[in-house]
């Protein structure tokens, strides 16, 4: 791109660069999980401050639930619900949970999560691909939570997933993006939107995800368990926007030595 091309183009406005998943368009590139908030009031304030348009919810036995207020709050925020299959450890469980979620929430979108054990909460790749194939065949729009393995990401896209959602590090760990190279590589070879999901600890992690080329960031506990969830939600919103802009702007190459930005010629003898 020449200087003339750049000058001729518009200055990008945040929001003029929508995210599209399975034909649905979102202005915000931040997806919020709802788990971990100390109260519904704080959750509502965080969701509003984040600017998100898509939030995840889960299904549990009725006795374990406090009441119907959660969905009311989220509907009041005007966000779209993305049911998940959290806690499922087999393809069979995940497929059944997705079917129940479709019935309960009236959406065929599902965040597919199939974990290998409850200590690491890391995805079980074999069960995950199996579940993804079954759900796609049943007409679901599958957003698959996965490890940061680029080849597995491609297999999930090949299976028909609408988005591939690699972890930065284990769920709730706040360890950030442990293997940025894998995330960039995965983004390169996966032909559907890539959403960095899990491991975000603070705003710079979210910005890095976007700088690496991710199309969106999904986070929950980084906001809901922050000392001030609403303030952190606002920070994440800015970070995602900044990272996206920086990615589009094209960062300078890293150099071993300094490179002066002020010319040497014309220095006076003093």
């Amino acid at each position, binding site marked *: 791109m020449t200087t003339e091309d750049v000058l001729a183009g518009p200055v990008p406005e945040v929001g003029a660069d929508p995210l599209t998943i399975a034909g649905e368009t979102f202005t915000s590139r931040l997806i919020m*999980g709802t788990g971990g908030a100390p109260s519904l009031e704080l959750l509502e304030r965080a969701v509003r401050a984040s600017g998100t348009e898509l939030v995840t919810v889960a*299904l549990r*036995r*009725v006795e374990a639930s406090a009441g*119907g207020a959660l969905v009311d709050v989220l509907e009041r925020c005007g966000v779209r619900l993305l049911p998940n299959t959290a806690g499922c450890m087999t393809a069979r469980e995940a497929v059944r949970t997705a079917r129940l979620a479709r*019935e309960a929430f009236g959406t065929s979108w599902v965040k597919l999560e199939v974990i290998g054990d409850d200590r690491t909460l890391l995805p079980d790749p074999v069960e995950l691909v199996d579940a993804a194939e079954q759900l796609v065949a049943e007409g679901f729009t599958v957003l698959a939570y996965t490890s940061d393995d680029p080849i597995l990401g491609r297999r999930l896209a090949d299976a028909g997933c609408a988005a591939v959602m690699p972890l930065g590090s284990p769920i709730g760990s706040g360890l950030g993006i442990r293997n940025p190279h894998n995330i960039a590589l995965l983004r390169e070879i996966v032909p559907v939107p890539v959403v960095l999901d899990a491991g975000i600890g603070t705003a710079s992690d979210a910005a890095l995800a976007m700088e690496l080329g991710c199309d969106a960031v999904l986070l929950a506990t980084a906001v809901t368990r922050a000392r001030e969830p609403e303030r952190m939600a606002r920070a994440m919103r800015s970070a995602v926007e900044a990272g996206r802009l920086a990615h589009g702007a094209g960062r300078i190459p890293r150099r071993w030595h300094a490179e002066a930005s002020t010319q040497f010629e014309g220095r006076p003898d003093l």
Partner: protein
Amino acid sequence: MEVTLNGVPTEVTDGTTIAALVATRAEGHSRIAVARNGEVVPRGAWTDTRVAPGDELEMLVAVAGG
């Protein structure tokens, strides 16, 4: 007769429908899903579906989650 509701052996009267169970157990919830022996019972079938002895029922609602 006895059914298992959300993992707990539960006594219900003969002829109880899914709709009746939902009305008593999930009052105040707007998003509800019911599985009977692992299969979804669609909302439209709740009124006509009577539980049978030994049925394994799961009644699920929305909760916060990542």
